[in-house]
């Protein structure tokens, strides 16, 4: 039997191991070395070094979503360096905000303090962005968020704020129009995941669908812990599905992420629901089909304010390279993060080796970059310009594009 003394011996060892790994992994984790105090000239020549940072969740419940973006940013930087035509050297750095508005100001200060950081991809979440953006604006450090979709962010008046995704106000009403006018939905059951993302979206959808003359029932089902979206219990879905089935709805719209949507879709199928399933860009992920099962997911409509990347050859290249770097498939917001990083890089290229943080902000205001998801151009409030909503459908176990929502 182990006694205390034995445990006493094990534990310092673990500590020692940790200390060791702390040294070890810091060497590994960032390809370009992560010492933040680095001077701005590279060892090799006279090229200055700029850092492009990623801020988003890297630990805690939303880590996976954050990792989806992190590797995309790293990939963009690696590719730009490898191209060899840069008048400067790029480095990757990161700051973990756990997707939490409480942590994000701290994470932001870390990047602001590092004078060689010239642009930031992120913050990933709307709440984190709201909390950190005043600091970035104060420091005149540009942030390009790949995934913060809260409409109110554009009203903050922060010069440093840009995003490469459409806000929820673009998507919700377009989806409602499509559901009612194209799919002929008459009785729609709208469910959100009670998150900062789902709540406003379901409201925008419901309001428009009512205007279009459909009968709308709204309900909130908190995202579940196994999907890291909240503290809901997955066992709520069978009962909810029975309720939906009993309500006589012909269409279910889910405002939330693919993981919970897959659970709901499975439960709906089990309850014998045979109407249309409809969700948003949070569900535009092949993992939805994998987790729900191909037969359950078949026929599901999914909307996104992003163009189809699977037919785009540049995007194919991205998908393979991402997998090689990250050791997992690119997922939600990976392409957006890739575009955000490349947009900053394209601005830097234009300015050249003397770039300052303020110049990057100015450059982003007038940028026109053709990314893998869309053409990146910003409006004066930082929103992406000219967003159109696309509709996708799961057919034969694959997500295929049906084209623009309003055509």
């Amino acid at each position: 039997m182990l006694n205390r003394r034995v445990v006493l011996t094990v534990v310092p060892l673990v500590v020692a191991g940790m200390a060791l790994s702390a040294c070890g992994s810091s060497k590994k984790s960032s390809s370009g070395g992560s010492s933040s105090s680095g001077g701005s000239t590279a060892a090799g020549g006279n090229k200055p070094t700029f850092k492009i940072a990623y801020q988003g969740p890297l630990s805690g419940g939303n880590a996976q979503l954050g990792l989806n973006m992190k590797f995309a940013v790293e990939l963009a930087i690696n590719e730009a360096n490898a191209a060899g035509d840069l008048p400067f050297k790029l480095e990757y750095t990161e700051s973990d905000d756990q997707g939490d508005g409480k942590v994000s100001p701290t994470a932001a200060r870390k990047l602001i303090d590092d004078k060689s950081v010239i642009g930031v991809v992120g913050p990933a979440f709307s709440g984190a962005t709201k909390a950190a953006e005043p600091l970035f604006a104060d420091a005149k450090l540009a942030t390009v968020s790949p995934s913060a979709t809260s409409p109110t962010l554009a009203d903050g008046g922060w010069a440093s704020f840009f995003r490469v995704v459409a806000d929820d106000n673009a998507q919700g009403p377009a989806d409602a129009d499509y559901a009612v006018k194209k799919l002929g939905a008459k009785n729609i059951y709208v469910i959100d995941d009670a998150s900062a993302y789902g709540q406003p979206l379901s409201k925008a959808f419901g309001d428009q669908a009512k205007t279009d003359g459909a009968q709308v029932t709204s309900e909130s089902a908190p995202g579940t812990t196994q999907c890291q979206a909240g503290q809901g219990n997955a066992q709520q879905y069978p009962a909810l599905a029975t309720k939906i089935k009993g309500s006589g709805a012909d269409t279910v719209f889910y405002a939330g992420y693919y993981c919970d949507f897959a659970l709901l879709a499975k439960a709906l199928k089990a309850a014998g629901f045979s109407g249309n399933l409809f969700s948003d860009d949070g569900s535009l992920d092949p993992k939805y089909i994998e987790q729900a099962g191909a037969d359950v997911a078949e026929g599901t409509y999914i909307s996104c304010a992003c163009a189809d990347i699977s037919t785009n050859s540049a995007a194919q290249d991205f998908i393979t390279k991402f997998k090689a770097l990250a050791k997992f498939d690119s997922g939600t917001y990976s392409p957006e993060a890739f575009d955000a990083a490349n947009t900053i890089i394209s601005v830097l290229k234009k300015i050249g080796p003397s770039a300052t943080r303020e110049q990057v902000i100015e450059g982003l205001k007038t940028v026109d970059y053709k990314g893998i998801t869309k053409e990146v151009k910003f409006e004066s409030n930082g929103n992406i310009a000219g967003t159109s909503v696309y509709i996708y459908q799961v057919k034969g176990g694959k997500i295929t594009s049906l084209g623009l929502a309003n055509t």
Partner: protein
Amino acid sequence: MSAIRDSEAIRPPQSAGGGRSAWQRLRRNNNARKLVACIIGALVAAVITGPSGSVSHPTAGFTGALFHPRVIVFLVLGVLLWLAMVGRETLSENIKTVTAPISMARTRWLGDPKVRYSLYAALLIFAIIYPRSLSSFWQGVLVDQIGVYVLLAIGLNVVVGFAGLLDLGYIAFYAIGAYSCAYWTGALPIKPVFHLNPFVSIVFAVAAAMIAGVILGAPTLRLRGDYLAIVTLGFGEIITIYANNLQSVTGGAGGTNVVPHLSVNLLGLKYHWKLDSLPYYYLLLVFVVAILVMFRALENSRVGRAWTAIREDEVAAEASGVNTFKYKLLAFAMGASTSGFAGVLFASKVQTLYPSSFALTESILILVLVIFGGMGSLPGAVLGAAVLQWLPQFLRGKINQADLFLYLGALLIIMMIFRPQGIWPSRRRARELAMAEAGLTEADAVSGPTAGEVQ
């Protein structure tokens, strides 16, 4: 009727009897067991720090960590540690000769109020001067991660440490304070009766938190330890759910509008707190010191003695004429109002509130801070909050960030095995624990008497 004692001494006779196999002899050999433990520990450390796997390759992480030359480094470390352990007996004698005068000096000095107060003064001066030399990142950490949590930990320390009430919904009062502040400063979708300066809203917010504490406490404080824990836990959950679901009142999951920064405009004194962390830090420092002084006085007063009595033995306290219910409610309300107060500072610092900031895990985190620091000890609560909140920031970028909580989890287990009383236990608690270890009394009354006993 108490915690389970070590049964080594009262092992069934058959295992102590003769006829042991070689295996049993090996298991009885202390050094051999230590070696095995060291090697297992080394392998665990190798896995923790090793590569990650995935669902399609669930063993990739383990094989990558264990069938790789780097495991040798860990094994060597493990064996070295074992050697150090085996040679420790002589070593510990040497250590004792060195540490004995130090610990003697410590008791003598800390017993002397003059030395103690000059020590406090020196610490305070350090706390005033040192942060000025920090980068804005660390200044931010001092406020957002450390300062606010120090305040919270001090408040929870009154409830858990002084009165021995296990409160798992402590964060609810923090939320009530923060949302009250948002309400009175006009940052919620529903508009207040009249707008208030955030400073003035402190009064209302603290009152709201305290009232909530009394409303929750009055019926539930009659429950025993673990039942109180689950009821408070439920209360914490309910508050977050309300904040999340009542979109028209709180703004829902999308968060509140912007809460203004603190500002003073009184008798010619004009100051406006801004994005900069340092002014907030000093404000927090003032409040923390004031509250510490207050609680210290309380601890040594009649009230504090009543709490100690309740914590150590509620039945005996009741029998000696202590109105246990009154004092428990008082502790609960004091904790709640401190938490509400911290909520106001938090609200005006972060400016936007989200229900997710007040999740159950936060309540648990604060409890961890208090116990890690040393239950019932005010310096312990401060130190626990400071150390545990500083550590993740220190590790930022040094370890694979996704594995942060893996390390913190291991740290908590290790800490509790070595020093269950926390890093800076109060002297009274230390005595209670020593008595418990000697088997004289129960270590704490938080869970009440064990098996049996009808209430």
